[in-house]
């Protein structure tokens, strides 16, 4: 089973991101789960969203997990939230930041010693450039596709178009660009 924890603020799209990811992973024949732990239900509040992916039906309903991936889509939460909670020797981190990796890790003692498992990408800037709004969920999906190696980029983009089908073409195009750019820029 692969377990993913998203750190986000309400309004940044982590819940939608987790559900979109679940939707696309399911097309590969896997079983998925996507859920969120909302704090106080207001925009800007910190929240966590979760994915589980497995070959067998997923029957656990606990919120508790030892994540394989931690996806942080708000730059400040990387500093203020406990992003390394319940991590493993192999947990990979993808963090939204305008900093380079070394500068970021310098700021976050909990990530020190995990350099080879930390990846950075500026999802905020990418979403501003491509979608026109600060919606960092789509670029994070692109970065995840690259880091996890779970899909070919083209396969993911094709399926994402289906997930976004109800939106105007401009939004769909922006999301495609955002995913592609993050895929190429994550380090």
């Amino acid at each position: 089973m692969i377990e993913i924890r998203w750190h986000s603020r309400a309004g940044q799209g982590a819940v939608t991101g987790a559900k979109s990811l679940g939707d696309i992973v399911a097309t590969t024949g896997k079983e998925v789960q996507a859920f969120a732990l909302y704090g106080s239900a207001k925009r800007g509040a910190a929240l966590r969203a979760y994915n589980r992916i497995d070959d067998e039906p997923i029957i656990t309903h606990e919120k508790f997990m030892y994540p394989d991936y931690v996806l942080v889509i708000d730059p400040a939460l990387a500093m203020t939230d406990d992003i390394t909670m319940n991590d493993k020797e192999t947990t990979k981190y993808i963090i939204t930041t305008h900093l380079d990796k070394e500068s970021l890790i310098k700021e976050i003692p909990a990530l020190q010693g995990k350099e080879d498992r930390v990846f950075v990408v500026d999802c905020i800037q990418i979403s501003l450039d491509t979608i026109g709004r600060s919606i960092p969920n789509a670029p994070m999906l692109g970065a995840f596709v690259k880091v996890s190696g779970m899909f070919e980029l083209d396969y993911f983009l094709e399926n994402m178009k289906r997930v976004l089908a109800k939106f105007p073409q401009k939004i769909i195009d922006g999301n495609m660009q955002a995913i592609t750019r993050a895929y190429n820029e994550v380090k």
Partner: protein
Amino acid sequence: MAEKFDLQEREVWDGNYAASQAMRQAKVDVMAAYPITPSTPIVENYGAYVANGYVDGEFVMVESEHAAMSACVGASAAGGRVATATSSQGFALMVEVLYQASGMRLPIVLNVVNRALASPLNVRGDHADMYLGRDSGWIQMDAFNSQEAYDLALCAFKIGENHSVRLPVMVHQDGFITSHTAQNVYPLTDEAAYNFVGEIDPVDDMLDFSRPVTYGAQTEEDWHFEHKAKQHKALMDSVPVIEDVFAEFEKVSGRKYKRVESYMMEDAEVAIVALGTTVETSRVAALRMREQGIKAGVVAPRVFRPFPFDEIRDALENVKSVAVLDRSSPGGAMGAFYNEVSAALYTTENRPLVTNYIYGLGGRDFAVKDAMDIFADQKANADAGHITTDIQQFSGLRGPKLGFFKTKRG
């Protein structure tokens, strides 16, 4: 004629979306609703299906849950296929009319997304609302995941509308844990779903002006008791219909439901009895206990009302120690579910040891580890031959350990 809805063979739906799709496929005639978290998306989605032409039914906006259920009573008595959804405080406000609906023998379907009752205010899940409905005369079915919330909602119409049943049916799912968790769901096609549910054939519909009837007459001591006894008997006698509908559903879906679901019980020495998503989480725990050599199993009523007294006995009579888990504040007694399971087990030859765990109130996480600890308690009881803990304990509670009552029974 309703628009065609594009469905995939495999969808990723949360429990709310799954339930709303079942409402669409069953071609509900009237949905009267006053939305409340966490069940809001069920009625919201149905409203969108109506507005976008995906269903020919009517959505009636009302001023409260009391009015919602009242409108459902009216529409059902008129002869329509009727459904709604609610949770928690909304459910509590509906209670008066729930008894009206069952007393009038109206086959309304109510999707209940279980949520704690205030105070303190809490939108998250526990079974306080579900328990509030347990004497209301409704059939109550319990989904453990999104797929089941969909499947059981379809079954609910077919059971309730059956002429030898004619009772309202609740389908329960856990607030947030099921209602807001997207999982793989394998829906039936619209055609298969509607063929399964079938067209409603109303009995004594008030729109049949050639044959006027009275609903909800006053009876007083002269006839009330006979009415209520008949209603109780109708609930008890709904068992074969429920079983037939489950068997028929298996034919169209490949998914098998039983009034009591048992997992790994063939050789089990210790067992957890639970409701909702906890059933599945406990199954994971039972597998891990088995890796440690402890023969653990899980038993769960799929149908909470009529209470499966016999099947609970059959499922549990050969185990040594049983934990019954109540996700509702017991309010000065043992958990209600514990009492019901214990009553069934008291009539068995073997009379296993039975203890009660209060857990998960207001959405407190129930982790696999919690279930493993409960299994470990049961193993200690089984080995000792008597209850080694307080009879009622709290699982997952912060602060000092809380428990009540002891026994020297061996």
